[in-house]
């Protein structure tokens, strides 16, 4: 009899464990894009394509998409055609596994791989105007598409590494990402609301930066903020974290190019 009860208790505990996320994770119904925490004026700026300064980057990216480049003399459009059709939903699936590298690459890295391998052109520098513009143009085609990164046996190790980074205390302030973004979202940090850290609108036009910026720029800013040494642009640790953040925001709609304060 007591054996049965004990088995029942164990089964119940396992069921509870399986059903609940790690402590403090935001339930799906309570997830909010950073958009909802912004002021009315900033939201209006994002909603109006002629007021959204991120669209300037998208326009520039559209021109770069059609421009022939590199030793191969090919433009993005020569292989991929009309981005409106071919790139729809693509950004919502990145970072994605690269078969040759056997690890996930983000959208910027994918664009650079295309440049070096297909166009035989030099890779663009991270945060360079042209790379941000191309990324914004490609990601713009996914606006409204729900985020859906692959979470399978092949991406699991990278997803786990990203998750571990999110919950790891680091830096001189000894803070983990989740301590702000899971446990204290919506409260204020130096007058600004703390968002839930869902990367729905990257590359974003950040008013503080007065320019477009990538998710890695944001992550490096956060790391500096907790006085940890930031990883270099393109570091696998950052890509793993990007993958985890996108998985955490799965199902949320893409907003690129978003405007953030």
């Amino acid at each position, binding site marked *: 009899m007591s054996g049965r009860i004990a088995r029942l208790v164990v089964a119940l505990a396992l069921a509870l464990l399986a059903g609940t996320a790690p402590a403090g994770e935001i339930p799906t119904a309570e997830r909010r894009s950073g958009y909802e925490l912004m002021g009315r004026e900033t939201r209006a700026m994002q909603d*109006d*394509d*002629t*007021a959204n*300064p991120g*669209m*300037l980057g998208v*326009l*520039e990216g559209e021109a770069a998409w059609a421009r022939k480049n590199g030793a191969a003399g090919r433009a993005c459009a020569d292989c991929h055609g009309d981005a409106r059709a071919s790139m729809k939903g693509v950004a919502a699936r990145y970072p994605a596994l690269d078969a040759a590298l056997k690890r996930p690459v983000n959208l910027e890295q994918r664009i650079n791989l295309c440049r070096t391998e297909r166009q035989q052109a030099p890779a663009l520098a991270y945060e360079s105007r042209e790379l941000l513009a191309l990324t914004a143009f490609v990601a713009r085609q996914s606006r409204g598409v729900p985020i859906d990164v692959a979470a399978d046996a092949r991406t699991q190790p990278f997803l786990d590494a990203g998750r571990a980074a999110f919950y790891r205390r680091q830096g001189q302030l000894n803070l983990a990402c989740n301590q702000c973004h899971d446990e204290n979202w919506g409260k204020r940090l130096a007058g600004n609301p703390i968002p839930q850290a869902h990367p729905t609108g990257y590359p974003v036009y950040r*008013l503080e930066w*007065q*320019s477009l910026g990538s998710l890695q720029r944001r992550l490096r800013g956060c790391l500096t903020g907790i006085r940890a040494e930031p990883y270099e642009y393109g570091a696998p640790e950052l890509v793993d974290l990007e993958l985890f953040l996108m998985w955490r925001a799965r199902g949320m709609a893409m907003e690129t190019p978003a405007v953030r304060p």
Partner: protein
Amino acid sequence: MANALVNVPPRARRGEIIEIKTLISHPMETGYRRSQLGATIPRDIIRLFVCTYNGTEVFRAELHPAIAANPFIVFSIVATESGTLAFQWTGDNGFSASESAAITVD
């Protein structure tokens, strides 16, 4: 490389007040900042924005260093006749950009 976005309503009634929105890509470097080596970063801003309506100047703005990158200028005009609205931005280092939009007034 100058990119500009203008938003002019394609149609309007005669005498109607219409809103014009313009956005242009520009760094608007103030000239007050210094590089990491201490050298002054030279000023690079848009100095003047002019809008003409069928050749007549209807709006003009002088821009100064305190204006943020990618200036977004919104103003209203009275729609009087069909024609073209032309926009001209000029600034430091020979910067010049122009854009135009057609409007039908009935």
